[in-house]
């Protein structure tokens, strides 16, 4: 899962990014509206955490412009908890909002919820034959036994699970699993896929040569 955070307060941005990375997300950051819009339009993020008050384009304007081209789920961070501000955010196309000051747990939960909704899933549990993925607890079970996965491996499984039945290209996987600062060594992805197959069964992820990967 790859997430963009647009927030101008440096300490808040840094801690949010760190916390989300530790949750296993690939995180890109922008500290002003213009950069934020540029990133959001150029990359298929799984979700965007967007502050309302930003230098340059403010959050509302960024969202309005982004909605012309992309349906990326957006979680607004607002310092105003008045109803009209919430309504404005939701009407402009935000998927959810969190009022500052917030608890990290709440941000995590709401992010998971908007990502799940964007992939048309209604529960946090995805069953793929013998493999079960709990996206809330970020656990994977194989034959009802918990499996130890690294954060990156889990993200790979979760992303493939959320796109079950589709062929997921290597580019897509790179986009969603790695942030813009990570060097996209092409074999890094192969290593993760190979590790997941070792843990969840060789057939769990099928390779479509020339296209990408797929979970049936």
């Amino acid at each position: 899962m790859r997430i963009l955070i647009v927030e101008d307060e440096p300490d808040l941005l840094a801690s949010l990014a760190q916390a989300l990375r530790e949750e296993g997300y690939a995180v890109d950051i922008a500290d002003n509206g213009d950069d934020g819009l540029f990133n959001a339009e150029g990359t298929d993020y799984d979700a965007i955490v967007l502050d309302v008050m930003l230098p340059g384009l403010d959050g509302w304007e960024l969202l309005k412009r982004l909605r012309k081209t992309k349906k990326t789920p957006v979680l607004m961070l607002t310092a105003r908890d008045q109803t009209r501000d919430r309504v404005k955010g939701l009407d402009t196309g935000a998927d959810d909002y969190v009022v500052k000051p917030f608890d990290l747990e709440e941000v995590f939960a709401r992010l998971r919820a908007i990502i799940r909704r964007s992939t048309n899933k209604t529960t946090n549990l995805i069953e793929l034959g013998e493999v079960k993925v709990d996206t809330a607890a970020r656990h994977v079970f194989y034959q009802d036994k918990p499996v130890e996965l690294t954060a990156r491996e889990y993200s790979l499984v979760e992303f493939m699970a959320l796109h079950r039945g589709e062929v997921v290209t290597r580019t897509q996987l790179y986009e969603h699993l790695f942030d813009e600062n990570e060097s996209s060594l092409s074999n890094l992805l192969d290593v993760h896929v190979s590790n997941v197959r070792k843990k969840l069964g060789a057939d769990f992820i099928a390779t479509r040569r020339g296209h990408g990967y797929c979970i049936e």
Partner: protein
Amino acid sequence: MKLYKSIKWRLQLWYGLILVVVLAGFGVTAYQLDRNRLLRQVDNQLHQRVKVLADDLHHRPRGQDANRPPPGQPPHDPGFEGAPFDRPPQDQFQNDGPPPQPQRNRRLLDFHLPDEDAHYFEAGDPHSFYFSINDRDDNLLAHSDNFEWANSVTTQVKTASVNGGPTLGTPTPNFEGPRRLVSEDLPSGDTILVGCSIAPEMKELRLTALKLAGVGSIILLLGLAGGGWLVSRALKPINDISATAVKISAGDLSQRINVAEAESELGQLAAVLNATFARLETAFAQQKQFASDAAHELRTPVSVILTQTQTALNRERDAASYRLTVEACQRAAQRMRKLIESLLALARFDAGQEVLNRQPFDLAQTIADSVELVQPLADERGVKLTVSAAPLVLTADAGRLAQVVTNLLTNAIQYNQPEGEVRVTLAAEGGLAVLTVTDTGQGIAAADLPRVFGRFYRADSSRTGAGNAGLGLAICQAIVTAHGGTIEVASTENVGTTFTVRLPVAEDLSA
């Protein structure tokens, strides 16, 4: 609302009282006039009868006067013989029961009211006219038929004889009730007394009084009803005002009095009240906005502390990582402290509680100190600072004014172009110290100029990260105003902005 405290009822009461007094005055006057008229009529009739009697006496044959006794002596009428004149008649009456029938004065026995005048003293007349004729010694010479000896002495009759003889008993009419008398002394010395009952007049007057009272009551009732209507009508705007004020005091500050008659006194009052309500609403909205802005400003640093600490606590970390977290928390706390100090300063200035420590000092030196303080920031941004300030001694709060200068300088540097310039000048102008700070920055849009000194105003609406809450200029203004000075801003977009501070050089004791 207690009835006696209600303006409406008090007005009604006064109105009613005045009406009662006026009506009573009219009624009494009308009654008196009617009474006088009736009595005059009666008097006319009495005088007419006196005249008739006098004429009749006059035409009486003179010889009959021959037996008249000399003045000063009691009459020697046989008709009076046996009458105990040596004793007061009262005693006699008291002792002897029924009064004796008066015997006719012999001298006047042949005086008969002529028939043509008999109708003047007819028995059937409701006025029961009666008469008596006395000689100069009060001896009863003649009287009408409806006259009889009463058991009391009436005062209308001359009482004492000249020689101190006994008082003659006076006949009284044989009816009860109010009477009216007219007496006339004839040249012959005789006295004619004519009286009558005025019971019919009194009856008429009672009727008149009743009518007046009735009409007066009706007028009073109509007046009270009309007055009540007028008072209600006049007080209706007051009720409207009151109803609106109640709604406003209940918290709905958007209410306004409906001013229908703007020209009337109450209309003007309503307009004044509406203006007051509008100011109240604005002040209230500003206060609310201020509180909301203040809360909003605190949200970001609190968010920083929460996310920083929660992230840090999520797992074990190395010392360097914790250090970063603590530093971030410290920055957030400093920011909150700055904000709280600013808010408190503004609140103190608002409440007039800020005490200025006024001492004579050189403002030019203060400017030099401030410039030194912000020089690193200017260097960092590549902004050139030029100062043109001659020594100028002010009696003011040096610390507070240094805050103003530093704040203006910091703004001028922060909102300047790279490689821009900030010019500071200080000059004395007619008892005022004039300080200007000019930058070569992007300028402020004309529409924003009035809001520059407003609280939480920011040139860049979303500079939350800069640690600048947008209170600096508001505080500058509060400080300058507290010193009795003024602060103004002039700006041209893309050219620059000039802040001008004018301070009285002498201590303004009124400030």
